[in-house]
């Protein structure tokens, strides 16, 4: 039971949490014991310089496939009752939410580990690219970070897929 979405609109964290806690009939689920979450936000500076905007580009089609594959991997590794992966695209201001990960489980260890896994893999395996615009109007594509590769690598790889 995964909610996967790529959207231009702002992410409503409270609404997404409420949606995850609701069953198909709109009733509150009572099988969930813990929800882990990660929320990524736009920082106001990059390499020490203030930015005015962060723009997210993606690969429509492949993005949704990649996010679904990541959610499937998490569901295969941990006891998850619901997963939410929502990523914004387009221009965003500093302080806005870029990404929301929710992982619900009967138990907290599964929820927290799955949350870390989901964001680590999303950051290295889903086709999004960040572009920062500085106060002087220049822009710069964000470079991938080796620390993100290392964070993703600690979870191993899935069969038949390059790391």
């Amino acid at each position, binding site marked *: 039971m995964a909610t996967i979405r790529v959207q231009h609109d702002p992410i409503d964290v409270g609404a997404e949490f409420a949606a995850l806690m609701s069953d198909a009939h709109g009733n509150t689920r009572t099988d969930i014991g813990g929800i882990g979450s990660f929320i990524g936000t736009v920082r106001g500076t990059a390499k020490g310089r203030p930015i005015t905007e962060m723009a997210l580009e993606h*690969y429509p089609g*492949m993005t949704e496939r990649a996010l679904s594959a990541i959610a499937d991997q998490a569901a295969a590794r941990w006891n998850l009752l619901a997963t939410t992966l929502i990523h914004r695209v387009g221009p965003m201001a500093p302080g806005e939410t870029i*990404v929301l990960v929710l992982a619900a489980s009967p138990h907290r260890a599964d929820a927290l580990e799955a949350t870390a896994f989901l964001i680590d893999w999303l950051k290295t*395996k889903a*086709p999004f*690219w960040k572009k920062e615009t500085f106060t002087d109007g220049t822009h710069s594509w964000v*470079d991938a970070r080796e620390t*993100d590769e290392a964070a993703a690598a600690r979870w191993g790889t899935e069969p038949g897929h*390059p790391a």
Partner: protein
Amino acid sequence: MAEPRPLRLLYFSWLRERIGTGEEELTPPPGTDTVAALVAWLRTRGPGYEAAFGTTAPVRCAINQDFAQPEATIAPGDEVAFFPPVTGG
């Protein structure tokens, strides 16, 4: 024999900016059947392509929306995308 179908090529991020388009249909010469061979041929198509593929900056590839290595096989009609290492999240 079936009509040869072109490749659908997609470029993202700074590759798109350097090449000057995000999407095009091309039919590479016969024998261009791996990602590496396709890149070698694209680099001959002009300075934008050379700027995109001819630097030390790492470039990733996906064939039909799955990540692919340089030695991966491409076939007519494939959707082949080139982009820098991803930076979402």
